[in-house]
């Protein structure tokens, strides 16, 4: 254990804890852009800098481990000045588009500019001027809004392990992209959208036909219905319509989703979606109630079993069902029908 003092408050934390984590344990909030507890410390954005007594320069709280007797100030005048300067440099080369930006209301750059009262950069320097990359069918990449925190790249390489995106070029021209600046369609990208979920600004944004602002949304926590993993996610709901999905950082998915969970929600309001069972009557499919459908299935199964024996029937279950449902399904076939012909689609 290590003893240190943060903002005058003594705290004891385990060895190898970062200053940021130690501050968190005291309920002190330090701003971060590039930090994500699931990722290897990066220390790139410099917004988390703090004053450590005796240190030559301000230290990045997200990467510097605590040391015995350390005295830390997280909001001293020099820290605030440094954070303001960092924000000014970011906003100087960022389109001032909060008026209509889809990220507005959910943007860390906007949050911290408000908190530290930064309205503009004031340098009148060069600005990035990239076309918006919409080569992926599920999301857009506006490199003009990118603040180079590298979260998207690190999630892609460290957690998703696809390795589709990385930094291209150097210096002022550094930008996130596919090697050789190809389109997303020509890349290894699997459109999982985890880069989109972690982007702190409006650079990586999901494509959607609906118009909505972040503050108009209601979040509904649910379990992804696509497979047996049971990823935890939040549906973004406007009025009564699902307009987006965000992963939740808990077991089993720890803030990750796949392309189906992240972007495959539009079936919910799709006009072709089947909402009632249909029964073929005189060659035509007609709407039926669930009771009618179940009766018909049971009748046909019993009829087939009587006529051709239990092994003439087979059950094929779905990965979308829960373990309990799959257990009951095999029980139905083994115990009620009397056959071992039970299988599973394994994946969708």
């Amino acid at each position: 254990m290590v003893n240190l003092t943060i903002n005058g408050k003594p705290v004891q934390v385990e060895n190898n804890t970062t200053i940021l984590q130690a501050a968190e344990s005291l309920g002190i909030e330090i701003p971060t852009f590039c930090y994500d507890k699931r990722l290897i410390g990066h220390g790139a954005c410099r917004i988390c800098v703090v004053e450590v007594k005796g240190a030559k320069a301000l230290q990045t709280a997200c990467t510097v481990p605590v040391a015995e007797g350390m005295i830390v100030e997280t909001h001293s005048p020099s820290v605030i000045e440094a954070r303001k300067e960092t924000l000014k440099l970011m906003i100087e080369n960022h389109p001032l588009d909060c008026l209509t930006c889809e990220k507005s209301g959910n943007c860390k750059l906007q949050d911290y500019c408000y908190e530290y009262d930064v309205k503009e950069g004031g340098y009148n320097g060069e600005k990035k001027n990239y076309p918006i990359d919409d080569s992926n069918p599920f999301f857009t990449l506006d490199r003009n809004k990118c603040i180079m925190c590298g979260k998207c790249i690190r999630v892609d390489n460290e957690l998703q392990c696809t390795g589709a995106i990385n930094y291209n070029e150097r210096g002022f021209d550094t930008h996130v992209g596919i090697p050789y600046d190809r389109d997303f369609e020509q890349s290894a990208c699997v459109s999982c959208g985890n880069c989109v979920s972690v982007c702190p600004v409006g650079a990586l944004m999901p494509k959607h036909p609906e118009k909505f602002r972040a503050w108009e949304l209601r979040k509904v926590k649910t379990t992804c219905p696509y497979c047996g993993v049971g990823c935890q996610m939040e549906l973004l709901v406007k009025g009564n319509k699902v307009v987006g999905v965000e992963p939740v950082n808990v077991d089993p998915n720890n803030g990750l989703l796949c392309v189906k969970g992240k972007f495959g929600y539009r079936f919910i309001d799709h006009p072709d979606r089947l909402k009632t069972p249909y029964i073929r009557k005189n060659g035509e499919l007609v709407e039926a109630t669930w009771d009618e459908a179940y009766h018909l299935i049971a009748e046909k199964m019993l009829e087939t079993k009587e006529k051709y024996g239990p092994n003439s029937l087979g059950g094929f279950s779905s990965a979308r069902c829960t373990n309990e449902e799959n257990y009951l399904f095999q029980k139905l076939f083994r115990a009620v029908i009397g056959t071992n012909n039970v299988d599973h689609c394994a994946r969708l």
Partner: protein
Amino acid sequence: MKMLNVTINGTVTQVPEGTTIMQAAAQLGIDIPALCYLKGVNEVGACRICVVEVKGARTLQASCVLPVSEGMEIQTESPSVVTARKEILKLILANHPNDCLTCNKAGECKLQEYAYRYDVKFEEHQGERKNLGIDTSNPYIYRDNNKCILCGRCVSMCAKVPERAVLAFGNRGFETTVVADNNKTMGESNCVSCARCISVCPVGALIDSRTMNIARSWELQKEDVKCAVCEHGCDFQLLKKNGKVVAVRALAAGEGRPLCLKGRLTVDLTYNDNPKTPLVKKDGEFVEATWAEVLGLDKILGKI
């Protein structure tokens, strides 16, 4: 009452004589944008954002003031209407600070809402811009005339308060601004800080100073309460952040004598988890006062 037949966006409906196009559309669930319109207070057709296409009319018509007539055929989102609205928004934005990044009104701003709806962005231009000072002379009212879109809501609202009418339009043309008394600061003027002007401002020109720099509108949970000081029962809103009441603001005023300073301060003291010291104007200056003093409880408390 005579009923009139009108067709709005292809849907036929019947409304009583005297109904405006905007009201008739609202009955059909059609939302027509409005910046200056405020029912019963400011029905002036000034901002032009509510224009609609009326078959046979020479030009687009302001739907907030034009009553429907028999057989009227109206389009509320036709290409020419949308073009006009975009142009109006472009003109407003051309002379509006690009400050949604840190503006306290962001998230509740009508200009932002409609700019998003009609996909109009700030454009760089060489034209003139307003360059007026920010008036913080009144500790309760933050006034930034650079953000004012001259809708006139605050002026009409202020005129409804007996013996006030502090706010008015001053100057002409590009120089037009909302002024307090004879172009005094809010602090110097006869303003009694009833905050009715703030409650109706559609943009970030008038903001309750006590809600500034606390939180963004989208971080706040809102709860409506009624003031219990007198029989009017004015509506106030508690702004909560992480479960704590961080500010109290007045909602749009109704009839009677609503949103008085006494009521506002009482609601603030009753609900706010950390109320700021009240300020009272003495000899033209705002000075810190005790709660007992501002609420007129001095004498009673002295007797206890």
